[in-house]
């Protein structure tokens, strides 16, 4: 009986989207949107979802942030199920695992929930749109380029990543390895990929281990905000400060002290708030029937302007920004 009700409502939702097939031009009011970050305790995720909440306020949607307190592969599942049970219009999530969530996301899709991933993608079949903070290839290559400059294109380098399974990290690392194949990096050698599990203490000790184990280490890339700040904190008090270059992805507030004391010369990031903001606009546009997720469709994202849906439903926020001593004080997030 209940199942039938659910089916009916799903059908009704489907019908309602059909009836607006002529692509309405405004976002519907009162949309119900769930924002599901990787981990509600991660400050990066907090900034990201705050951007989403800001966007929701602008468009008159009812949005909420829910999520697990650990970044385990399966801990997001119950929140997806809840979104289905609560008949949300759209779900915006940063996936902890590219595959583990697929069946549940598909179930949500069938129930009429629009799925937008941000930051860390699932397989293409699991979502309609993916908001990429920056082009993965660009991020990976740019970080190697930056580090190459810092170490003079010579010496051992290492990567301090998040969890071994993090989709985004692994994609970037893949592109870093591609970039390193270019002839100008022939004197740079990637000796180790360490995993700090996005855990501050673990990242800290991993950094320490890298420096201990590889005496010729010249540079470290940490493409995660937790890793780079923990790594910088270790470096700032260790004799290797100034001898080992550290770069990667970090937030200005976390890194300010280390840039100023010379531990870190430069690092990169996009504005995480913008990621959530854009994702929420994209989700609302989908739920209002303004777009369907096909390549080439365009939508407006408030203060960020107009965006175009790329291949495989990917929307790129923009290139990463490089922070250094000269510009860091202009940012507060």
């Amino acid at each position: 009986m209940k199942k039938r009700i659910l089916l009916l409502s799903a059908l009704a939702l489907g019908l309602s989207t059909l009836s607006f097939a002529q692509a309405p031009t405004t976002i519907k009011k009162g949309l119900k949107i769930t924002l599901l970050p990787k981990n509600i305790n991660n400050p990066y995720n907090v900034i990201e979802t705050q951007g989403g909440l800001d966007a929701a306020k602008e468009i008159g949607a009812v949005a909420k942030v829910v999520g697990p307190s650990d970044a385990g592969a399966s801990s997001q599942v119950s929140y997806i199920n809840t979104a289905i049970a609560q008949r949300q219009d759209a779900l915006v999530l940063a996936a902890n695992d590219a595959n583990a969530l697929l069946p549940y996301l598909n179930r949500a899709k069938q129930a009429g929930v629009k799925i937008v991933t941000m930051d860390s993608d699932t397989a293409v079949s699991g979502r309609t749109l993916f908001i990429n903070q920056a082009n993965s290839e660009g991020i990976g290559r740019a970080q190697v380029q930056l580090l190459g400059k810092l170490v003079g294109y010579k010496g051992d380098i290492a990567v301090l990543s998040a969890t071994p399974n993090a989709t985004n990290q692994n994609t970037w690392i893949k592109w870093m390895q591609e970039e390193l194949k270019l002839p100008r990096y022939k004197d740079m050698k990637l000796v180790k990929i360490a995993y700090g599990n996005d855990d501050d203490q673990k990242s800290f000790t991993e950094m320490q281990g890298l420096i201990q184990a590889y005496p010729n280490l010249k540079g470290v890339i940490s493409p995660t905000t937790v890793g780079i700040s923990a790594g910088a904190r270790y470096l700032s008090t260790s004799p290797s400060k100034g001898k080992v270059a550290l770069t990667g992805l970090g937030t200005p507030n976390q890194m300010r002290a280390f840039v100023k004391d010379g531990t870190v010369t430069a690092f990169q990031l996009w504005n995480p708030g913008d990621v959530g903001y854009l994702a929420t606009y994209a989700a609302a546009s989908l739920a209002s029937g303004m777009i369907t997720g096909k390549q080439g469709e365009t939508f407006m994202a408030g203060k960020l302007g107009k965006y175009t849906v790329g291949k495989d439903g990917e929307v790129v926020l923009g290139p990463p920004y490089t922070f250094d001593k000269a510009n860091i004080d202009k940012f507060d997030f």
Partner: protein
Amino acid sequence: MTERSVPASAPASPGWLSRLLMAREVSLVGLLLLVTLGTAVINPLFLSFGSVRDLLLNVSIIALLVVGQTLVLLMKHVDLSVSSTVGLSAFLTGSLFVANPGMPVPLALLFGLGLGAVLGSVNGLLVAYGKVPALVATLGTLYVFRGITYAVVSGGQINASNLPPSFLGFGTGSVLGVPNLVLLAVAVLIGFAFYLRSYRGGREYYAVGSNSEAAVLAGINVTRRTMTGFVLSGAIAGLAGVLYLARFGTVDATAGAGLELQVIAAAVVGGVSINGGVGTLLGAGLGALLLGVMGSALVTLRAPGFYQQAIQGALLLAAISIDMLVSRRAAKRLQEERKS
């Protein structure tokens, strides 16, 4: 007095018990030297000043927690909640600094001790007065204290940049090349080791764990002793939380999670019996150091990252198995000694 005459010199043989325990600690030191020197031969950097300093800093927090855990283990109880206490104490101390950047460091340490003591007294009340088995009670408070931390933190984070320089200086500072944190941990360890060995109160921990009914009959207030043990374990964990904050600077809601098993492992490797009544703090401290050295050696020897956990688990199993075999042989010898 005809059938069993007493040889006048019979009890002159020097301390059976202490000899046995010495053997235990000697073997730990031996193993420690073996691992350290072995690693150093392959990679001399292992014994460099910076590397040793980092190692000691890493071990100091575990070593501190082992002190409290040993008190509880000696009484045949266990305190799983220490990791959550560390987390809550680290975060709340950090928040206190954010609110009052001028707070002096000793006050922060006192705050950690006090908060830990309060949390420890919850465990103590449950175990000593509520008669809840320690494993159940502290597994429960492991969840509860961590949940409170999540609720208080709610996605926030304490960053090194929010902490006053005086406190960070305390965390990174050293006296004669020995880091402050290490000094503090060693001082607590030695103090309690002395107390456990040479004071009536300290001996009561052994008595309670060895035979709690007999302890009651010997006039020991077992309930109060149990309570004290848990309060001390909590207080030490609270202090460790402050040191955690000083060491790592950045603290979020998951700070310290999972430490409890490492701490118990260190104590067990160090010869503290989970059946109560057996073990010394010297051994437990050495156990913590040994595990730390092994972990660090694996990194230095460039053991593949994915192998490290497996190797650590295997080493822990080997340590407790060898310990069991050695102590069993010693017990047998004791029995035979008496017979012959």
